[in-house]
């Protein structure tokens, strides 16, 4: 499970680490390749992948490490996006206002939802997070001033002064890439800290953690809020990327997608969700080239992952070394 701590005691050149390094190199060089062949679609697709990978990393923080299976994480994508979109529409175009406000709103929503949801566990937790996300979805639909069901176009990306231009596709890609790496590093530091140990301890045996004297509720709530804020950041990026926000960003199908990315890549590993996001979104894209009925292939595949491959791709790569 804890491959990050395990890999410390083994040589660094495992198949898994080689794969991760190769993936990072590919992601880093992709804009160069796109510039050479002049393909902007690929760049746009991978920007989306990086942004959703960040959301998957945030979900994995609570789901993989904290054992809190949130089925409503897309809500933070939407809330972050709407906070940015609404501010942009009302004339606040500076990113220095938009981004902190978006993160703050997501943090507050996570605080309220988390405080209620964390009173429950198991299936209740899954369903309640789902229900609250659905509530956010319906509120967005009811926002007539901001497009309601149809959503709204955002005419101006976040402004950060003269020398930063988010409309430059290559620059935006590298910004997302850098933020993703930063978030992955943050999560890695977090889960290996004392705080992370308490969270993981509460996942394995909450009663014992409480008996030792840790107020697990507070730790889990903090973790939930951090995760919501990271996901909110990716929501802001996503709305910047598409220049558009609509309620379907937070539909529960999207929450399911995020969950699939985290599990497919490898739950409870720091880098797994990134691998999962790349794999899932590329698979979706490739399948859509061959058939308009991707679900007929994708659905049973997910079932197979649920049944056979709990470690996800990361688990398979780690297994290569042993086998």
């Amino acid at each position, binding site marked *: 499970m804890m491959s990050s701590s395990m890999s410390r005691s083994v040589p660094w050149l495992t198949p898994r680490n080689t794969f991760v390094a190769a993936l990072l190199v590919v992601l880093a060089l992709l804009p160069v390749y796109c510039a050479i062949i002049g393909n902007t679609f690929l760049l746009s697709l991978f920007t989306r992948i990086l942004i959703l990978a960040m959301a998957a990393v945030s979900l994995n923080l609570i*789901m993989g490490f904290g054992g809190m*299976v949130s*089925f409503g994480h897309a809500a933070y994508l939407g809330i972050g996006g709407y906070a940015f979109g609404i501010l942009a529409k009302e004339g606040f175009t500076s990113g220095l206002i938009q981004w902190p406000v978006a993160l703050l709103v997501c943090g507050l929503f996570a605080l309220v939802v988390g405080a*209620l949801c964390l*009173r*429950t566990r*198991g*299936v*209740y937790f*899954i*369903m*309640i997070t*789902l*229900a*609250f996300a*659905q*509530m956010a979805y*319906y*509120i967005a*639909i*009811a*926002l*007539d*001033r901001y497009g309601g069901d149809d959503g709204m176009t955002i005419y101006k990306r976040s402004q950060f002064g003269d020398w930063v231009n988010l409309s430059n596709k290559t620059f935006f890609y590298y910004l997302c890439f850098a933020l993703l790496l930063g978030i992955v590093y943050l999560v890695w530091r977090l889960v290996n800290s004392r705080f992370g140990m308490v969270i993981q301890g509460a996942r394995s045996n909450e009663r014992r953690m409480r008996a030792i004297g840790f107020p697990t509720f507070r730790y889990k709530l903090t973790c939930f809020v951090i995760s919501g804020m990271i996901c909110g950041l990716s929501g802001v990026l996503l709305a910047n990327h598409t220049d558009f926000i609509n309620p379907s960003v937070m539909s*529960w*199908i999207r929450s*399911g997608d995020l*969950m*699939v990315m985290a*599990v497919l890549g490898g739950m409870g590993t720091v880098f797994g969700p990134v691998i999962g996001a790349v794999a899932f979104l590329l698979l979706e894209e490739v399948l859509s080239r061959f058939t*308009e*009925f*991707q*679900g*007929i292939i*994708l*659905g*049973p*595949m*997910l*079932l197979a*992952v*649920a*049944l056979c491959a*709990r470690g996800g791709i990361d688990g398979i790569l780690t297994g290569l070394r042993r086998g």
Partner: protein
Amino acid sequence: MLYFIEQCLNGIQLGMLLFLLAAGLTLIFGIMDMVNLAHGSLYMIGAFFAATFAEWTGSFVAGAALALIATLLVGMVLEVVAIRRLYGHDHLDHVLGTFGLILFFNDLVRWIWGPAGMTLPLPSEMLTAVQVLPGVYYPAYRLVIIGATLVVALLLYVLVMRTRIGMLIRAGASNREMVGALGVNIKLLYTLVFGLGAALAGFAGLMQAPILTVQIGMGENILILAFVVIIIGGIGSIRGAFVAAIIVGLIDTIGRAFLPDLMRTFVSYSAGSSAGPALSSMMIYMLMAVVLVFRPEGLFPAAKR
């Protein structure tokens, strides 16, 4: 006042629909400890079957009966092929696996029936309005839905509480190993229970089909409401599902019908117009939050195992 009574009836009708879905979900959860997101797909399939069979046979009732049987069969096949393998896994696997099934069924239906959706015309005798109270007219078909669901709820109660199968179902919920050890074919029992849940979802879908258009993804939003119902009612409790379904149906319908107007009158016109619709769609979730704060296990928690 007349409008209020009409909205109450609409609320009860929504509640009945939610009960049909929630009963299947809660039954499957209570007995197999299984979270089934694909329940909404079975609802959709029931509606598509009903529309198709009604077109073939030219009769609404025959179409509905055939669709009910077909959905039952689909449910049982689904259980044997896929769901059965998920028992004993943890809930996250259930969510993932059945989420995959939703994607599968959505595109399968799109492949078979095309993306346009269908309509299911009502027989002419159900198109009339009936005078339920002096001066209150109500569409006959919606009354049929309420009546039929009450009958189904009663049958379900008799089945679970008064028959041998029901006894086995309840026994399976409290101790599956023991029931298996006593020589009951527990696999077959599970297949039957899943089929029953599927048939209930299909019944909800086919009853609702003439009111809404039959389309892909029609089961997805109503499924969330069904989840809210079983959270409020207590997961695993059919009685709780029934009570909570009616509460949720009434609050949602009446909230949507009156809250914006009430706010226009008592707060301010602009507040009612802008925040009213948003607030009324939040109401059932706020109810859920309140229930959770005071009774985290729901209003009628199923007996502890």
